[in-house]
C-alpha cells in the first residue's frame, strides 16, 4: 500500500516536471525515459513518446497500462480495504477519496484538454494528504513500521532507477553529460533542486548530482537516506519482536554498508551502471525476503 502511494507520488512529480519542460522545449520532447522509469523497458504500449497528452493519459488514466496511476491507486484501495483493522479510519477514507478522485471521468477530460499541471497537482495533493494523515493518526506500531519500510524501499528503488536510466541515456548521447538543463530537470523531478543549489556552487555536474542522489544523508530522496530509514524501522520491528530478523537483517545491513562505504567518484559509465544494477537487485532481494518472511502464506 505504502509502496504504491510512494510510487505514484514519484511518478506524478516526474510527470509534472517533464510536462513543464516539454512546454519549454523548442524541438520535440521525448517522454521515453519517463516511460522506461515507471513502466519498465518494454511496457511503453503503443503510446507516441512525443505526444505529451497521450503519454500523460497513458500514465495516469489508462486502465490498460498496469502501471498507470488509476490502476495503482485501485490496488492501493483494495489493499487498504483488506487491512482496515490495521489502519485508522482517516487513512482509509483518505485513500478511498484518492481512488474516487482519480476515477472521476472529469479528471480524464481535464487531462485531455485543460491544463495537465492542475490535474497532476490535484493527485499529488491526495498523496500528500495520505502522508499527513498517516503521520498524524497512525499509532507507531507494527503496521506503521511496515508502511514506512514499504515507503522507503520503494523510494530507494525509484531513485536508483531514475539514476540508472538518466545516466544510461548519456551512453547514447554523450552531450547530455554536460547539458545543465538535463541535470536540472532530474533534480527538479525528485525535489532536490534547491538543496543542490545550496550544496554545490559550481553549476550542474553529473558527478555531484549522482553524489547527492546516492549519498546525501539529509536529502530525503537519496538512496542512503531511504536505507537508513529502512534500517530504523526494521530495528523497531525487531525490538517489538514482530519479526525474526534472520536473513533480512543480513541483507539490509549488507546493502546499507555497501552504499555507505562506497565511493562513486570517477566511476566509468559501465561501472556506474553495474553499481546501480547491483543496488537495485539487492533492493528487490530485500523486498522479496520481506514477502517471504512476513506475508507468505506457506
Amino acid at each position: 500500500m505504502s509502496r504504491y502511494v510512494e510510487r505514484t507520488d514519484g511518478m506524478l512529480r516526474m510527470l509534472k516536471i517533464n510536462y513543464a519542460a516539454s512546454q519549454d522545449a523548442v524541438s520535440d520532447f521525448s517522454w521515453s525515459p519517463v516511460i522506461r522509469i515507471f513502466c519498465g523497458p518494454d511496457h511503453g504500449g503503443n503510446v507516441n513518446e512525443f505526444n505529451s497528452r497521450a503519454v500523460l493519459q497513458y500514465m495516469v488514466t489508462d486502465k490498460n497500462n498496469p502501471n498507470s496511476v488509476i490502476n495503482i491507486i485501485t490496488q492501493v484501495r483494495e489493499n487498504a480495504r483488506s487491512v482496515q483493522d490495521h489502519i485508522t479510519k482517516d487513512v482509509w477514507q483518505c485513500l478511498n477519496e484518492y481512488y474516487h478522485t482519480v476515477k472521476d471521468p472529469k479528471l480524464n477530460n481535464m487531462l485531455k484538454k485543460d491544463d495537465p499541471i492542475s490535474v497532476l497537482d490535484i493527485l499529488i495533493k491526495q498523496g500528500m494528504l495520505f502522508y499527513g494523515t498517516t503521520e498524524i493518526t497512525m499509532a507507531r506500531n507494527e503496521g506503521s513500521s511496515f508502511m514506512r519500510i514499504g515507503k522507503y524501499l520503494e523510494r530507494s528503488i525509484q531513485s536508483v532507477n531514475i539514476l540508472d536510466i538518466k545516466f544510461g541515456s548519456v551512453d547514447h548521447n554523450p552531450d547530455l553529460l554536460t547539458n545543465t538543463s538535463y541535470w536540472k530537470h532530474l533534480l527538479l523531478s525528485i525535489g532536490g533542486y534547491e538543496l543542490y543549489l545550496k550544496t554545490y556552487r559550481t553549476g550542474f555536474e553529473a558527478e555531484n548530482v549522482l553524489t547527492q542522489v546516492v549519498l546525501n544523508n539529509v536529502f530525503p530522496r537519496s538512496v542512503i537516506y531511504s536505507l537508513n530509514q529502512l534500517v530504523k524501522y526494521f530495528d523497531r520491528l525487531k525490538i517489538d519482536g514482530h519479526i525474526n530478523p534472520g536473513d533480512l537483517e543480513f541483507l539490509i545491513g549488507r546493502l546499507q554498508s555497501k552504499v555507505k562505504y562506497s565511493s562513486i567518484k570517477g566511476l566509468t559509465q559501465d561501472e556506474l551502471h553495474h553499481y546501480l544494477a547491483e543496488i537495485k537487485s539487492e533492493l528487490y532481494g530485500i523486498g522479496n525476503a520481506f514477502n517471504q518472511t512476513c506475508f507468505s502464506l506457506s
Partner: protein
Amino acid sequence: MIKNRHTESYDLPKNTWDEMFDQSKQVRSEYKTVMDYLDQESTDELNKKEELSKVLFMSQGITFTVYNSGEGVEKIFPFDIIPRIITSEEWEFIEKGIKQRVTALNLFLKDVYSDQFIIKDGIVPIDIIYSCPHFLREMCNVKVPHDLYIHIAGIDLIRDNDGTYYILEDNVRTPSGVSYMLENREITKRLFPDLLPQCKVRSVTEYPNILYNNLRSLSPRQVDNPTIVLLSPGSFNSAYFEHTTLARLMGIELVEGPDLIVEDHKVYMKTTGGLQQVDVIYRRVDDEYLDPLVFNANSLLGVAGLMNAYRKGNVTIVNAVGNGVADDKAVYVYVPDMIKYYLNEEPLLKNVPTYQLGNKDERAHVFENITNMVIKQTNGSGGYGMLMGHAATPEEIDAYKVEVMKDPRQFIAQPTISLSSAPCYMHGVLQPRRVDFRPFALCGPDGITIVPGGLTRVALKEGSLVVNSSQGGGSKDTWVLS
C-alpha cells in the same frame, strides 16, 4: 469551428503601431497560431483561464506591495493572458542594439569614475555630470572587478507608430521585474497548454543560472565556494517577492542590512555557526541607503562600513555603486554620442527626442508645447513625479511648472510617443492597450547575455500611456520566437 471573432470586435487605435494587427487589420503572421487558438475557445473558457491566472498568482504569493495605496498593501500584479510576440528577426536587432548600448554605458561609467576622457573631449558637458545627484565622488578611482559596473540592465523599449523601436529609459541601478518574466511564462504554460512548443517559443528559464554564474565569477576571493548574498530592503519592499524568488532560484542567501556586519574592511554574514565572509552582494537596496557612514546616515537598510570594504576590493557589489549617473535622464540624451565616442559605431536603437529643461531655449519650447510633452524627473523611477501634458489640467501644469523652475536641471521633456498597442483580454473581448518592453541584459566577464524574453508592461487603463506597476500597469508574457 470558430467560436469567436476577436478580429471584428477589435477597435484598432489610429496612428499607433499595433502588435497583433497591421494597418489593414490583418493578423500579423507571428500571431497567427495564437489568434487561431483564441478563435477556437469560447468566451467562457477564456474567462476561466483569466480566473485561473489570478488564482495561480495569489496562491504562489506572486504579489507586490504599493506604498501609497489606500486599499490594503498586498496586490497581484495584473496579468493579461494574451502573450506579446516578438519575431526572431526583431529580437536579433533588439539584442544587438542593447548589447551595444550597455557596452557603451559600462565604458562611460568606467571613464567617468576614472580619467573622464569623455568630459575632457567635450562630448558630455561637465555640469551635467557633476549636477547629477547619482554621480558619487566616493566612487572615483575605485577599481571594480573586470571593470564591470553594469551587471544587470533593464532597458525599456517602446515602439512609435511606424513600429520603430526606441529606447525610453536605461535602468542600470537595480532594475526589477525579471521575476515576472519568469513567473508569467510558468503561468502561460498552464493557461495555454501545448501552445508554447507549437509556436516554438524560446525558453527563459536559464536566467537565474546565468546570473548566478556571473555573480560567482565576480568574487574577489579565489575560493571554491564564494558566499553570495542578495541584500533586500525587507518584506515591506514592493519587489520583495522578486528578491525571494531570485534568491531561491540561485540558491543564495537572502539577507537584510542587519544580517551583515563589517569588520576589518571585510563583510561578514551572521550565521548560527558564527560569522561567514561575504564575497558578492547582489543588492536590491539603492545607493543612498547602502552605507550610513557614507550616504544617508538615517538608513537602517544598509551596512555601516560597507563602502570601505568595497573600495578595498574585499567585496563585490552588484550593480556597482554610482551607476545612477548612467541612467540619469539628462545623461540619456548623450548616450548616442557615447556609443559613437567609445565604440565608433552608429547607435542601432534610437533615443526618444529629449529636451533638457536646464537649457533655457529648450525649456521655452517645451512650455509652449506642453500639451504634447511628457515631463519627467531625471532621477525619478516607477512613474512617480511625471507630467503627461496631454492629460493634465491647466492647474496641474501650472503647479508642475513651478516645481520645474525650482531646479530645471532635474527635469527633461519628451514629445508624447504614442507607444504601440497590443490586444488585452478584458471583459470578454480583445481591447487595445499600450505596451512597452523591458528585456534584461546580464553582463559578466565573458560578455553580455540577454535571455530571449523580457517583461512587457501594459497600461491597463483605456488610452493611458503609463505602464508602471505603481500606476495601474500590468504585464504580459513575452514570447521570442525561434
